[in-house]
């Protein structure tokens, strides 16, 4: 089968389009901002970040990526319609996994010793960020010996710190009118009704989900408990049984007489040849599906309160 249109493998892009605050690219002082690959605390894989001039600020890089987009840039076309967003980020999120890891040893250590990673050598540069050393105390116990500072990861402090982050996120979500309720699948979908019915828990959960994008799974679960949010049960379990059982003392009787199919003269006809579509349908997992006939049964009247 020949496809009508084929995509050539992605060519190399020598340019990209990004949304950046002026202050980031203002290179009057020392050096250019640089892209760095660091360990993403949530996925444990490499993600792209940016360090501002002099490594004073950390920025995360997110790409808006949707199918069927391209750029016209000046007199050229770029097939990749990505739009990069370079936004400021708290470096503590990226430092945290290293602290947690060493926290298991339970020792006080100088942070510069902890932030060593062969895979992501740039991680030591996180310490030059202005907020890093000043905010370490949010997640660690500190000891000072002479001019040296030693740190030890503290789960309790971290939880309190993360809770504050969640609370702040809730405030921001409310201010920005971000829809946190269920059922909305697209941010471009225009909602007719304003969602005033969103509960505080909806906001908390949403904010927790957002913060969880920046921490490990374990921390995310611990934070959920810390926020006193019960774990959501999966919708499958919450679903009512597909058929209501009739409560009756009467002996159960068969609704239809199937015995005729058991007689010897009822020979099974060989199955007819199925079309491709029927075959595909036959492969479908039917467990949990209601039979068509159940939709035609008289409804059991809902109990009145």
């Amino acid at each position, binding site marked *: 089968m020949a496809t009508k249109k084929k*995509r050539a493998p992605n060519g190399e892009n020598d340019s990209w389009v990004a949304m950046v605050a002026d202050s980031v690219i203002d290179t009057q002082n020392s050096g250019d901002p640089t892209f760095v690959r660091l360990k993403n605390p949530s996925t444990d*894989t490499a993600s*792209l970040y940016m360090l501002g001039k002099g490594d004073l600020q950390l920025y995360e890089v997110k*790409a808006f990526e*949707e199918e069927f987009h391209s750029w016209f840039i000046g007199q050229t076309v770029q097939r990749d319609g990505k739009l990069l*967003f370079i936004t400021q980020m708290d470096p503590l999120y990226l430092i945290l996994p290293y602290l947690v890891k060493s926290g298991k040893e339970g020792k006080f250590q100088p942070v510069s010793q902890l932030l060593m990673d062969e895979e992501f050598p740039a991680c030591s540069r996180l310490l030059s960020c202005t907020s890093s050393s000043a905010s370490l105390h949010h997640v660690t116990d500190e000891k000072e010996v002479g001019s040296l500072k030693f740190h030890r990861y503290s789960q309790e402090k971290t939880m309190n710190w993360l809770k504050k982050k969640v609370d702040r996120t809730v405030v921001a979500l409310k201010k920005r009118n971000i829809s946190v309720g269920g059922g909305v699948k697209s941010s471009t979908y225009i909602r007719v009704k304003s969602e005033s019915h969103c509960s505080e828990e909806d906001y908390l959960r949403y904010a927790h*989900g*957002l913060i969880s994008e920046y921490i490990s799974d374990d921390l995310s679960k611990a934070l959920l408990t810390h926020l006193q949010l019960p774990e959501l049960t999966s919708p499958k379990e919450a679903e009512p049984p597909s058929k209501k059982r009739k409560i009756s003392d009467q002996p159960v009787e068969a609704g239809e007489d199937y015995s005729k199919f058991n007689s010897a003269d009822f020979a099974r006809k060989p199955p007819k040849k199925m079309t491709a579509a029927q075959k595909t349908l036959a492969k479908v997992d039917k467990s949990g599906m209601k039979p068509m006939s159940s939709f035609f049964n008289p409804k059991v009247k809902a109990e009145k309160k």
Partner: protein
Amino acid sequence: MDLGAFEADNSVSCRLVSQIPDVCRTEDCCLGIDEAGRGPVLGPMVYGICFCPVSKKEELKELKVADSKTLAEAEREKLFEKLDKANSYIGWALQILSPNVISTSMLQRTKYNLNALSHDTAISLVQYALDSGVQLKEVFVDTVGPAEKYEEKLSQQFPSVEVTVRPKADSLFPIVSAASICAKVARDHVVKGWSFPEDLGDVDTDYGSGYPNDPKTKAWLLKYLDPVFGYPQFVRFSWSTAQTLMDSKAVSVHWDDDEEDGEKAAQRQNKKSMLSYFSVSAGRNNQSPAHQAHRFFTERRLKNLDTL
């Protein structure tokens, strides 16, 4: 013929009209509709109407208007001059559908085919005559598509008018011939005087007849094919000639309403087909190893990058 209104912006649909003769407002009138430039891949399609009092039909015959296709260009020009001068009893109106309008109509998300576009243009011109106070009693049309259906459509649209749709109406009814002359002359003028809004430098205007089977036209299309943009607006992009050339010679462009088979498209987009949700294997172990981003990001199509 003053084409200034169209030439100011040749990317749109434009209406040119004559004065409405006073007799047409008081006497019963007949009206003919015809079009020019339906088939070419280049240039506009022009719709023309001509109308005159029923009592003046004979005088129209004396002008010796005949089917525009049987006339040489110079004769057509002369006849149009005559028609235009007979403005005491003959009126005309033209709708120039630029190639850009044709392209965008036929290629838009909800397809608007050439027949529908033609019918609607004809209807709008008849409506224009009615709105201008012309006492229409009879309308004669050269058919587009099946004659009966078109006749029914027009009759329903204009219940007070007797509509006659005939193939070759332009040789049967002088008023249709007159309309065809107006349309053809306008199309010739527009094509000759076409000013390319694109920056093409000195354009080679030797494109032949403009019909897809003309080798000169094909050669011209090849010459002016831009790998990114395709063609100048002078070309009807919706014509298969143009599309085939672009498919083979230009960069491929994907639109989100490109037709693709469901599963194939899903595969290419790296998405799951609906069917996979029902298959046994996918239903059971739903724990995807890949990290599922929060919906704040997925709803906004935001992703982490690992390289630039």
